[in-house]
């Protein structure tokens, strides 16, 4: 239960960060990728914790990597796209000035 409360607060904090930084523009598919990444992270952490409590550290490591790496890749894609978007907005603003 504690894990899910912490995960909820982290997600809420993430949403709050995006809300308080309107310069970060995300397209609808960025949101979709983020959602999938979040699901991967949840699965990675849940299965890691579960497998460790099953005394299966090898399975825990494999599952953490199997779900965590795709989650990281998807998050990186969204982050790079958002950063590029911000760069473009910044460059456009400089050109106008």
């Amino acid at each position, binding site marked *: *239960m504690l*894990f*899910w*409360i912490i*995960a*909820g*607060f*982290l*997600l*809420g*904090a993430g*949403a*709050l960060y995006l*809300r*308080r*930084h*309107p*310069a970060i523009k995300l397209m609808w598919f960025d949101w979709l990728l983020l959602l999938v990444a979040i699901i991967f992270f949840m*699965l990675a952490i*849940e*299965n890691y*914790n*579960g*497998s460790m*409590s*099953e*005394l*299966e550290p*090898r*399975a*825990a490591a*494999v*599952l953490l990597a199997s779900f965590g790496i795709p989650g990281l890749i998807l998050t990186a894609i969204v982050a790079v796209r958002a950063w590029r978007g911000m760069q473009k907005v910044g460059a456009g603003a400089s050109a106008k000035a």
Partner: protein
Amino acid sequence: MPSSLTRRELLKDMGLLSMGAATITALGPIEQLGESWGDKPGILVRPPWARTVSKPTVEIDWEAIYRFDERNTVRRGWSKYMDEEAFKAVQEQNAVAAYERNRAGQPGYSTRDIALYRASGIGASQSFLGPENVAKPEENNIPRWEGTPEDASEMIRSALRAFGAATVGFVELDENTEKLIYAIDPDGKELVISEDTEVPEETETQRIIPKSARWVIVWTVQMSQEGMMRSPTPVGAATTALTYAENRAIQSRLQGFLRGIGYYGVGEAETNALAISPAFGVLAGLGELSRLNRMITPEYGPMVRVFKLITNLPLAPTSPIDAGIMNFCRSCKTCATYCPSGALNTNSEPSYETQGPWSRGGVRTWYENSLACRNYWAEVGTNCGICFAVCPFSVKDRALIHSMVKSVVGTTTLFNGALAELSRTVYSPGLKDQPQKDPEEWWSLDYSEFGIDTRQGHRDA
């Protein structure tokens, strides 16, 4: 970007945070998917992928089935299938194998490991008629329990759970299922199904089951995965010995309970007596027959022992299931690959052809070379168990991945091969004749009672 936060914005942000936390907390129980399928009283209720079916997934030719003499199994009839000299040699080996390995310093065969194994088999006694120290209702002038078969199933399930059983199912005897009762018990006494008596009896040569006792109660008792992963050492074998010992008490308690409510139950006079447990387990829907030629359950995989009792208390039968287990066995073959004696069948498809007279036949399954298996037990001085330990279904249920995989296996056969390979890579990294986990490490575990998780497969503590 706002440079300062107004009270309104702060409240909105706090709302967002709380919503996130609330949503995820509400979704949290998804973690419990594998745990919340607990059977409802009396009737086994499984997740959607473990479907109840009208016939078991294993094909049975009832015409070819006859009441088997238990003494023809390799368990009891070991000497029948070897010449005298060879049998004498393996018996001698059987008696000293564990101690020889101890003296050679083999891991898993320390003095304390052997003592654990030997001591785990100590427990209550069991008998065909059961104990008589629970008063019958009429002895105290109280009415006998009456109810519908459904009520009775619910009651028996609850009582058995309290006594230490895991899953519980029921089979109604008919002209076919009756053939699964042994003709001769392991001790040579004939099992007679008689229309001439209303009460069970035991004589010097016979055990008499009244024809009016038409219901079979079947139940499983969990074995410890952590223990079994140390097979074939004595630490691994200890969990098997302990489960049989536990069941002797469970059976006696159930017989006492039935007597106390005004009925009777006839049980195993000794381990593996009376009837073929996995067959009744499969018919009751506790699991499916598998490449092990044993029952695999959706909840615990093969990590159970199956037991049965015949009663005159009318019960509502439970149905067989299809959870994709037998189909998975077609492509998996992990148990057969890891079996150090090569006793398990490696053919993809099951067959009616037995590997020796120790099997009765009549069932389209993967028959094993029981003799090779038993002789390997003699070699290692235990009852092995490697096939149970490496089975992909022998997993606990704390990680969500198990429910995810089982739901895929129960829905489609498409990924069975890949999932079996993945399971071997992740969960069975050991060599084929070695324990999958360090037996010495077992002694430092913060072990649970009996080494099992009693919440697995159930809801209510």
